[in-house]
């Protein structure tokens, strides 16, 4: 069994597919995420693909503060994703609420919303407004090493 588990882990490390969830971002982080797919950064060379459905995802890239409207939807998407599935909070807003932490439409940071569904969820934080693409690649690489 040990060999099988190692093989699974190898696959997960070599082919993390990501699904992009926008929970009320200003679009700046989203632009930086799309930057990762361009020739300059080309994350496909380390096996990362942007997939169209949470069913295919190994990681949810969450951008933006969790608004009241987006919170139940984010939780539903996390339930729909096939596990094991990481949650990556991209940007200051997703990590803490950022400059919107006192806003009326703020429904708690992303990690709290996800932990409500699954207390053991693996969550990665990438601060920055927006984080640089290099920072995102570094964060994903570190997270995969720790798996």
């Amino acid at each position: 069994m040990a060999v099988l588990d190692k093989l699974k882990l190898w696959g997960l490390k070599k082919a993390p597919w990501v699904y992009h969830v926008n929970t009320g971002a200003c679009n700046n982080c989203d632009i930086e995420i799309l930057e990762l797919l361009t020739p300059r950064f080309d994350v496909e060379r380390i096996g990362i693909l942007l997939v169209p459905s949470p069913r295919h995802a190994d990681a949810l890239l969450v951008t933006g503060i969790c608004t009241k409207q987006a919170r139940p939807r984010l939780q539903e998407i996390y339930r729909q994703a096939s596990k094991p599935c990481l949650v990556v909070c991209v940007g200051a807003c997703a990590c803490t609420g950022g400059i919107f932490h006192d806003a009326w439409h703020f429904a708690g940071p992303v990690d709290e919303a996800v932990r409500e569904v699954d207390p053991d969820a693996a969550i990665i934080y990438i601060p920055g407004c927006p984080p640089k693409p290099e920072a995102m690649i570094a964060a994903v690489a570190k997270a995969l090493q720790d798996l």
Partner: protein
Amino acid sequence: MSATAQAVLAVILGIFGTIALGLLFQWVDRVVTARIQWRKGPPIYQPLADIIKLMGKETVVSEAASEKIFLYAPVLGFAGLCVASVILWAAAIGPGSPVGFDLIVAVYFLVFPSVALILGASASGNPYAAVGLGREMKLIIGYELPLILAMVPPIVASGNSFRLAEIMNTRPEGALEIISYVLAALCVLAVSQAKLGVVPFDQAEAETELTGGVLLEYSGPPLALIRLVRGMLLFLLPMFIIIVFWGGVQLVGWGWLTTPLKFVAIIVVIVLMRNTNPRLRIDQALAFFWFIVTPIAVLASALSVYQHAVR
């Protein structure tokens, strides 16, 4: 080689050889695509890593889905394609094929992945998958007729034989017959683009529009099987074209050099078509197959029949 040894070899190569070469071809497809877009592209083990990872993931089945059909459909597609693969390999490695009419059987089994995908998507209970499966059905209606019609020139040229091994060893004679072969091969090339579900004929998946369409609800091992089938098709369809139209897979003497070159030529055409075209609307795709590809296939079969009537 005895007949039994040949059959065993065909089964082993047909399943494991096709899987290995299919994954390799998937990598070639992704790397060439990346190079066209000025990217570096994934490493050579990437398709294998994808499959292994998906095998270790959870299988999610939604409440609206009909579980058994949803989960068995990819297995059905895989099984059907394995049969097609064994038939093609049997023709490639030995002249004495145990089954007659194997051209028709091969064409019949090559449509299995699409049918299985339609079955699985219809059982998934997802509205996007429903739209996708409708498009896949329309595509099948569009491309099956020209595919069958394009089989006429090789059948006529080999003296009305339906055996792949005999068709493989038949060479077109005379200008008219060569023209009919080329036209029919072009038709099958267009059809294989649609069978593979790649741009311009990826309406059933349409990632930017249907978010995956027929594949939307699949996760874990069933998705791995579907991706594996895609890879196998990427190898089998060029092999089918080579066997029927282009002298076959001859692994003797110069064949060791020319056969891989033939594969490379067909794959490059498929990848270039996929990277230089936008996705067609489904009605445009249907019009393309019915009003452009089908008349060309009819013309090709008419030419070859005429040539034989005159001779």
